[in-house]
């Protein structure tokens, strides 16, 4: 569910650029990224739904979700559209808007540097996570991982290329990229504090222990930041560790879900 929520929430964010991108090619690239992520989310929710439906205890835990069921059973849209904010398990990083730090109901222009910096930081993680999950003892998850790995490699390439262009581009693009990295890096600390669910998955061989990926992630990130002439200010880490992946989010997710779920929730029994 953590992986699915990550994919869905970031996919929803990246799709916001559709029609507003800085250049037509980037509208298409972001739409493509978003399509990949929503595709991943669908496969993961479908898989999660089948696991829930097959396990009476789990089915009971999700019994309060009544919308978009299929033949009375939990379906992908039940999980995506009818869970509340605190039931989402995505990293806080995914839900942040495309601008610098502001409260939940502030408005601000979108900043493409924030978009690119996040896609870079997330893709660097997911390349490693999906790579590891190809060996998951959950065959379904392993298959999703194999497919997703190809996609996220491309996302990482795209984001890295732009981050280097920004860092090593104009004064303004450098300033924006550095500010975006400074803003977002602290949220990455949460990657290395796996939730109980992530730890259980790692322990039973269906998941990966993300903590083992940290050095590799650091190397990936540092290499590109160096090429981009950007500086990493977050070491040693001191401060709050974001807790979206255990259900304690930022003020932003509530607004994102209110919009995303509005139509589906207005018609809970409808088939689309």
């Amino acid at each position, binding site marked *: 569910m953590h992986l699915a929520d990550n994919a869905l929430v970031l996919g929803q964010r990246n*799709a916001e650029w*559709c*029609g507003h991108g*800085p250049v037509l090619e*980037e509208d298409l690239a972001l739409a493509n990224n978003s399509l990949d992520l929503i595709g991943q989310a669908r496969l993961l929710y479908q898989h999660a739904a089948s696991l829930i439906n097959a396990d009476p205890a789990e089915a009971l835990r999700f019994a309060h979700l009544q919308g978009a069921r299929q033949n009375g059973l939990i379906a992908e849209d039940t999980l995506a559209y009818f869970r509340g904010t605190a039931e989402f398990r995505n990293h806080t990083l995914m839900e942040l808007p495309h601008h610098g730090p502001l409260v939940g109901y502030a408005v601000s222009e979108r900043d493409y540097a924030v978009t690119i910096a996040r896609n870079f930081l997330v893709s660097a993680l997911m390349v490693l996570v999906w790579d590891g999950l190809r060996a998951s003892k959950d065959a379904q998850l392993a298959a999703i991982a194999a497919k997703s790995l190809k996609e996220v490699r491309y996302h990482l390439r795209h984001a890295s290329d732009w981050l280097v262009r920004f860092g090593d581009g104009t004064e303004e693009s450098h300033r924006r990229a550095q500010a975006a990295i400074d803003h977002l890096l602290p949220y990455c600390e949460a990657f290395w504090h796996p939730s109980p669910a992530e730890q259980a998955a790692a322990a039973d061989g269906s998941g990966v222990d993300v903590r083992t990926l940290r050095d590799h992630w650091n190397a990936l990130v540092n290499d590109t930041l160096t090429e981009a002439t950007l500086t990493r200010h977050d070491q040693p880490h001191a401060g709050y560790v974001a807790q979206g992946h255990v259900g304690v989010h930022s003020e932003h997710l509530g607004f994102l879900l209110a919009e995303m779920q509005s139509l589906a929730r207005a018609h809970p029994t409808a088939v689309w």
Partner: protein
Amino acid sequence: TALQTHFDAVIDADGKIEPRDWMPDGYRKTLVRQISQHAHSEIVGMLPEGNWISRAPSLKRKAILIAKVQDEGGHGLYLYSAAETLGTSRDQMLDALHAGRAKYSSIFNYPTLNWADVGVIGWLVDGAAIMNQIPLCRCSYGPYARAMIRVCKEESFHQRQGYEALLVMMQGTAEQKAMVQDAVNRYWWKCLAMFGPPDADSPNSVQGMRWGIKRISNDDLRQKFIDATVPQAEVLGVTLPDPDLKWNAERGHYDYGPIDWDEFWATVNGHGPMNKERLATRVKAHEQGAWVREAAMAHAAKQQQRQQKEAA
């Protein structure tokens, strides 16, 4: 001249004019105007449907919609490329759009107000666009004709997807059916107007026909669209909002009521419900993206310099 004679011969033989071939200035200008207008329509047309991506009511529909809007952007890209073969750059074309000198399809100056609008745009707007565009696949200018073949293929797919989405909604709740009917009511007449003014009032058409750019008249295309759409509406179970619409066995066509051309021209001339909003949104995206484009150019220049240094 010999060039003109050759050109005329190619046109008469239904052959293709290619970028390096000689062509009359008027032909070139007409094509640039038409292709860029078409490209702009694809780009501006991303906005009405993009408006519903964040609220799509299922993940499947969200994915389909993103893919569709992405396709429209893709059409924009290769239409701009086709126009560039005529010697006008994408920047020049965008400047013309942003300054209000170039037009885009007026249908996009109406808002998308409920989810069914997305399906109706697929079914009726794309449907009308395809009617307009299929003849262009045989257009005399090679790059345009080839681009249109690809565009038409994808648009047909979109049109079927839109119709399918509406079919599902019409089998759903009373509210879903009401949404579809509401969307059809708002879009039907605008779609009929998409074929342009009646033949009698359409001055550009004759030369366009001569040049093999335009192949079928506005009124003929409109009739063709109506004849194809009425049975689809019946299957769907929606009422087309025209009391005069009925089968005329004598003509072998459907008769239809008068189109409000005043409203059409008002919208074309900038007084529609969303002309300002659509254009301002495109201008804003372009302006706010300037630093991104500049960064890419600055970085490329630095890279080149470094490579030259290494080479030296």
